[in-house]
């Protein structure tokens, strides 16, 4: 080999195929623990929030529960209208409130 031939510079360790990864200031188990704790914190925090706000009036999704309520309370509710395609009979709505001759307990003010 000619002594005057140019020699290539060594491949930097950071870009070469045998590059080494540094462990970093935080060990891997620390980051994993952080990930678990973050997820758990979100779960527990959300669980507490959901428990405190069970019924959200402006929730985007509200599955229909009319049919389910109607089937369970059909014997007690006399004025529940159930939309049904199979039943063609006419639904009669009757008032369940009865008047009384007793004296009033509370007073309702009207303007």
């Amino acid at each position, binding site marked *: 080999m000619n002594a005057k031939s140019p020699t290539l510079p060594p491949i930097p360790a950071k870009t070469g195929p045998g590059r080494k990864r540094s462990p*970093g200031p935080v060990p891997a188990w620390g980051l994993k623990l952080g*990930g678990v704790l973050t997820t758990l914190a979100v779960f527990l925090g*959300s669980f507490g929030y959901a428990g405190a706000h069970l019924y959200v009036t*402006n929730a985007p999704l509200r599955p229909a529960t009319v049919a389910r309520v109607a089937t369970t309370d059909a014997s007690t509710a006399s004025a529940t209208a159930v939309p049904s395609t199979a039943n063609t009979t006419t639904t009669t709505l009757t008032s369940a409130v009865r008047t009384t001759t007793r004296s009033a307990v509370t007073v309702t003010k009207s303007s």
Partner: protein
Amino acid sequence: MDLVFWEIARASGLAAYAALCISVLSGVAPRTQALSFLAHNRAVRALHDWTPWIVIPAALTHIVALLLDATARIGVLDVLVPFLTSYGQLAIGLGTISFDLLIVVLVTTWMRRRLSNNAWQWWHRVSYLGFVTMFLHSMLSGTDLTSPVIAALSWASAIGIGYYALERLGRALNPARIRA
């Protein structure tokens, strides 16, 4: 009992979203210019490789709780096939798609040694689509996203991931900047 399942479903949905944010961020951030100093950090890479162990339990808890909640009326088929539900077809269907994509990414990752590196990378990029569909699912169907605090946190994490994803895409489309 339905109310307990309903609470668990809501909480685990947000937990799954948080876990997926950690997974995507730990995967994309070290490959961006802003956080390139993390590129050779073994711990961050180890965290990214390990995150399925927090994403999967959270997602499965969310799905099982909804299956057990009679009010939600979610069937087994709805878990895998989108747009079959009797209500909220788009909102719930996007969640189904994100779950399907999560399965695809996880299976191809576990089959990585059998795939070429190029093929595996393309399959792994599906995770971006999975995150977008999960974000839209949470925005369109998330009951707790009506809370300003939770909505702000969700949007902030999504914007952060979107920023890093776009930056990485820009670097990929402009190789001259990588050499510089």
